[in-house]
C-alpha cells in the first residue's frame, strides 16, 4: 500500500509565455522522466497552434518520482490547468485536485491579471502556494518589482519567493525541495467511503470517455460499480490507472492518488468535470464541494459553407462534444443560411477554438454568425425563458422584463492608462466601477461589473490599444440583471433577415443600428436597382442606408493573348455568382454574404 505522506499533488499556475512548459520540462529532466519528456515534447508540438494563438489546451496529468534530499522518493502528480479565462471553472476543478501550486511569474513581464485570478482560485481551494519568479537570467529581469507586484496583488512576501531560471535550470532543484517541504501530503483515508473528483476527461476511441480523477477518500478498483453523484448514473469500472506518463492500468487507486477511470461511458456529459465519483454500493453522503454544471454563456450559429456538408458538420459537432462537455448544440435553420446548428460555448475564445478545430481536425468549412449572450426573459405569464438567439426574442409586450448576464471584470493596467480604461468601460461599455487596488509600482487593478454582451464586440482590441498593449484582464460570470434591451432587426430590400438581428441596450440602439446598416450597405455589391437597408426596433425604422444602383464594372484591358484568360476569369466570376446566397430577396456572392454576417465580429488574432 502506497504511503500517502509521500504524495504531492501540484499544479503550475502561470500566464502564457511565463515559462510553464520550460519549467515542466526542467522538472521532468531533473527527475529523469524520459518518457514523460518525450510526451511533453509531443504535446507541445500538437498544441503548437493553440500556443501560437496564446491558448493552451490542457496537457494530461503526469506522475513523476522525485528523490528528495531527505532520502525519500516522492510521487509527484503535476496537473495542468487550461490557460484561458473562458475555462476558469475547469481551472478551479484542476486546482481543487491539488494540495499546492507553483505560482510562476515572469521577472521580465511581471504579474498578469489572469495569474492573479488563478492564484485566488488556488487560495480559495486552500492550496499551498509556492511563488516562483522565473527568467532571472534575462538581462531585463526585474525581480524586485515582480516581488513588489506579488506583494501588492496577493500579499506574498518577498522572502517567500523562489528565484529560478527554467531555461538554465538554476534554482529548479531548490524549488523541488521546497515543493516537497511546503506542500502538504494529501490527507484523506483509504478506509473512508469513496469520493473522487473528476477534474478532466478525454475521449479515447477504445476506452470511451476517460475521467481524470483525484481520489480524496476511499479507494477505487476495476469491476467496482461507481455512481456519479450529480446524476446518480452508475457504471461498472473497466479500467483504472495512473499517468506514468501514458495511461497505465493499475488495480486500484487510493486516497491521495491521481489517475484515470474508464467505465464504458460514451458521452462527455457522463463524466462531468467537477462531479464526484462514489461507489454505488456504499455511497458517500456528500459530494465534494464546488460542482457546477458548465452552462454555455455565448451562443452562435454554425452553418456549413456548403449546404451539402450539413451531415458532416453534425458528425463533427457530435465527435467534438465527446471531448467537451461544456459545448452544446442543437439543429437550427435560417432562411439566409439554410440548415445548421445553434451552438453554446463557455466564452468567445471557446467558440473560436471549436470553430477552428472543426475546420482543422474535421476539415469543415463553417460559417459562424456573430455571437451573442444568453438573455433571460420573464414572460407575462411569469414563465422565464432563456433566449439564445436574438432572432427569437419575444415580441414587445409579451414579456415583463429582460435580464442580461454581467461579468466581474478585473483589468490590470499601467497607472497612466487608468483614466482611459475607466472612461472606456464606463462610458462606452456600460460598465460599473467597483474598486481599485495597487498592483505594483505603476500598475493598478480596476474592478468592474459589466454586461457580458459588451465584451463581444470591439472590446479586447480596444483595451489593448488604450493600454498600449499592457493591460491584462480576467473576467467571470457574475449575475443576471434586468436591463432595458431592444432587438434590432434588419431589413434588406424590405425583407427581414433574421440572421442579422441583434439585441442591444436601449441607449445604444441608434448608434448600433446606424453602424449596422451602414456597414451592410457598404459591403453589399450594387445591384441593378437601389436597395434600402433598414434597421428596426420596437416596430419602427430607426436607421436606413441605401445600396446604390449599379456598380461600375469595367473590363479594363483586353488584347489578343488575353482573350482566353479574360474569358476564363469572367467565367469564374459568373460561376461564383451562380452559387449566390440570398440575403432577404437579394442574391449576393458567398464572400460578401460571409463578410456581412461577420459584421461586428471581433477578430481576436
Amino acid at each position: 500500500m502506497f504511503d500517502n505522506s509521500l504524495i504531492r499533488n501540484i499544479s503550475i499556475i502561470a500566464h502564457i509565455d511565463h515559462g510553464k512548459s520550460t519549467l515542466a520540462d526542467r522538472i521532468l529532466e531533473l527527475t529523469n522522466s524520459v518518457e514523460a519528456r518525450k510526451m511533453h515534447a509531443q504535446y507541445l508540438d500538437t498544441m503548437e497552434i493553440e500556443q501560437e494563438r496564446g491558448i493552451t489546451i490542457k496537457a494530461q496529468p503526469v506522475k513523476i518520482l522525485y528523490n528528495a534530499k531527505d532520502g525519500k522518493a516522492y510521487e509527484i502528480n503535476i496537473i495542468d490547468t487550461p490557460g484561458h479565462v473562458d475555462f476558469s471553472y475547469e481551472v478551479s476543478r484542476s486546482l481543487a485536485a491539488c494540495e499546492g501550486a507553483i505560482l510562476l511569474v515572469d521577472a521580465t513581464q511581471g504579474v498578469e491579471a489572469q495569474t492573479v485570478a488563478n492564484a485566488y482560485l488556488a487560495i480559495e481551494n486552500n492550496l499551498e502556494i509556492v511563488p516562483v519568479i522565473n527568467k532571472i537570467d534575462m538581462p531585463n529581469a526585474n525581480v524586485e518589482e515582480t516581488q513588489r507586484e506579488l506583494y501588492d496583488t496577493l500579499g506574498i512576501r518577498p522572502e517567500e519567493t523562489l528565484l529560478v531560471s527554467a531555461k538554465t535550470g538554476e534554482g529548479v532543484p531548490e524549488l523541488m525541495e521546497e515543493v516537497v517541504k511546503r506542500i502538504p501530503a494529501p490527507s484523506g483515508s483509504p478506509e473512508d467511503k469513496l469520493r473522487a473528483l473528476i477534474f478532466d476527461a478525454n475521449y479515447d476511441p477504445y476506452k470511451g470517455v476517460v475521467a481524470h480523477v483525484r481520489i480524496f477518500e476511499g479507494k477505487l478498483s476495476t469491476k467496482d460499480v461507481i455512481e456519479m453523484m450529480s446524476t446518480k448514473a452508475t457504471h461498472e469500472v473497466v479500467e483504472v490507472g495512473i499517468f506514468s506518463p501514458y495511461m497505465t492500468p493499475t488495480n486500484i487507486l487510493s486516497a491521495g492518488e491521481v489517475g484515470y477511470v474508464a467505465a464504458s461511458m460514451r458521452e462527455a456529459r457522463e463524466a462531468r468535470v467537477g462531479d464526484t465519483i462514489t461507489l454505488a454500493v456504499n455511497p458517500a453522503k456528500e459530494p465534494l464541494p464546488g460542482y457546477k454544471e458548465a452552462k454555455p454563456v455565448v451562443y452562435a450559429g454554425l452553418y456549413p459553407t456548403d449546404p451539402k456538408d450539413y451531415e458532416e458538420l453534425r458528425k463533427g459537432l457530435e465527435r467534438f462534444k465527446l471531448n467537451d462537455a461544456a459545448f452544446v448544440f442543437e439543429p437550427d435553420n435560417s432562411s439566409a443560411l439554410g440548415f445548421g446548428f445553434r451552438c453554446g460555448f463557455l466564452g468567445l475564445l471557446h467558440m473560436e477554438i471549436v470553430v477552428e478545430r472543426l475546420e482543422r481536425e474535421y476539415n469543415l468549412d463553417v460559417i459562424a454568425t456573430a455571437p451573442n449572450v444568453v438573455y433571460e426573459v420573464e414572460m407575462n405569464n411569469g414563465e422565464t425563458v432563456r433566449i439564445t438567439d436574438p432572432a427569437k426574442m419575444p415580441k414587445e409586450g409579451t414579456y415583463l422584463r429582460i435580464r442580461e448576464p454581467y461579468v466581474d471584470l478585473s483589468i490590470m493596467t499601467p497607472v497612466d492608462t487608468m483614466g482611459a480604461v475607466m472612461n472606456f468601460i464606463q462610458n462606452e461599455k456600460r460598465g460599473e466601477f467597483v474598486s481599485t487596488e495597487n498592483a505594483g509600482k505603476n500598475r493598478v487593478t480596476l474592478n468592474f461589473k459589466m454586461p457580458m454582451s459588451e465584451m463581444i464586440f470591439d472590446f479586447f482590441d480596444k483595451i489593448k490599444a488604450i493600454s498600449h498593449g499592457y493591460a491584462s484582464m480576467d473576467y467571470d460570470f457574475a449575475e443576471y440583471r434586468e436591463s432595458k434591451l431592444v432587438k434590432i432587426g434588419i431589413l434588406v430590400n424590405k425583407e427581414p433577415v433574421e440572421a442579422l438581428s441583434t439585441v442591444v441596450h436601449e441607449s445604444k440602439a441608434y448608434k448600433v443600428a446606424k453602424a449596422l446598416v451602414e456597414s451592410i450597405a457598404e459591403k453589399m455589391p450594387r445591384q441593378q436597382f437601389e436597395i434600402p437597408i433598414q434597421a428596426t426596433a420596437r416596430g419602427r425604422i430607426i436607421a436606413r442606408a441605401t445600396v446604390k444602383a449599379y456598380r461600375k464594372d469595367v473590363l479594363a484591358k483586353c488584347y489578343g493573348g488575353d482573350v482566353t484568360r479574360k474569358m476564363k476569369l469572367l467565367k469564374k466570376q459568373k460561376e461564383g455568382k451562380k452559387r449566390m446566397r440570398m440575403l432577404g430577396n437579394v442574391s449576393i456572392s458567398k464572400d460578401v454574404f460571409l463578410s456581412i454576417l461577420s459584421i461586428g465580429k471581433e477578430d481576436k488574432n
Partner: protein
Amino acid sequence: MLCTSHLKDEISIYIHVPFCSRKCIYCDFASTTHTELMKDYFENLEKEIDLYAGELRGKHVKTLYFGGGTPSHVPIKYIERIIEKLANYLFLNVEEATFEFNPEDVKHELVKGLFEIGINRASIGLQTSSDDILGVLGRPYTFDEFRKSYSILRESFENVNVDLMYSLPFEKVEDVEQDLKVIEELNPSHVSFYELEIHEEVPLYSMIKNGQVRLPSEDESEVMYDKIVEKMESMGYERYEISSWTKDKPCQHNLKYWENEEYMGFGLSAGSHLLHKRWVNTTEINDYILKVRKGERPTVYESNNSDFEEACETLFMGLRLSDGVDTEKMKKEFGENFEKAFSRIKKFCGEILECSPRLRLTKLGMKFSAMVLRELA
C-alpha cells in the same frame, strides 16, 4: 469581295518581350528582371517563328506590335533579328508597327534606331503623373523624366500612345484630374486609360489585404471614371474602345484583336487566333525556352473553337468597340450561333446595350462592360 479574299492572306503579328528593369507591384504580365536570359530567349523566339513557318509563309503583315514586359529594355539588335526572321516568311508591307517603351529606357539612339528599322508608332507607359504613386507602384521614373522621354519619342514618331491607369493605390480624384491636364498639355494622338485590376498573385494584393495600401473606394473610382470619360471627350478625343481614345486613328493592331481577326503572337504568353483556332503560349520563361529548344510549340492552351464559341468571342471582343459589331454581318457569318450568343445578353438591350442596327454598348453600358461580357464567357 476584294476585301475578304485578301483578308485571308493578311495577318497581324505580335512579339512579346518579357524583360523589365524592375517589377511593378501590380504586374501580372509575363515579365522578368532576369536580363541574363535575354540571349537565350531571343534565340528561341526566332526558333518559335520557324516552328510556324507553314502558317506564316506568304502572308502579308499589315500590323506589327512589340509589347511586353518592356521591349525598350532590350538591345535593338534583338529586335532587328526578329524582324529579319519574320521577313524570311512574310511580306512585311507594314502599315503600323508599334513599339512599347517605358520612360526609363527612352534614349535618342534607341528611338532613332527603331525608327530606321521601320517602327512608326510608339506606346509609352506613364500610368500616373503623380511621383508619389509611381513610387508606390514601383515604377522607376519620375514624371519629369517621363516628360523628357515623351518629347524624345515625339521627335521621331507622330503617332504616340500614352498609357495611363486610374483607381491606383492612394490615388485621389485630383490626381486623375492632374493626369488629364497632362494629356491636354502633351496632346498625344492616342491615349489608353485602364482601371487598375488586382490579381491575387501580385504583391499589391497582399499589401491591400494586410492594410499597407489603400485603394480608392468604389465611389471615388467611379468619379475618376466619369471624369476621364467626360474630359477626354471635351479635349477632342474619340473613345473608340472601352479603354482607348484617339485624336487621329485607332490602333490598327489592337483593332484586329477586337474585330476578332487573325493574328499570331510569338514569345512568352503570346496568343494567336487563326482559322477558328486559338492558342496561347506559356507564361513561364524557362518552360518557354526548354520547349522551343526541343522543337515543341510552347503553348499551354489550344482550342479549336466551335462556331458558337467563335460567335461568343467575336461578340465578346467586338462589344469593347464603340461601334460594336455589325448585326447583319454577324448573322451572315454565324447564323443561329449568333442568335444563341446574342440571347445571352439580350436582357441588357435598352439602357445598357443598343441592339440595332449595330449591337453595341451604350455610353452607360461601357461602364458596366464586365457585367455584359461576363454573360458571353
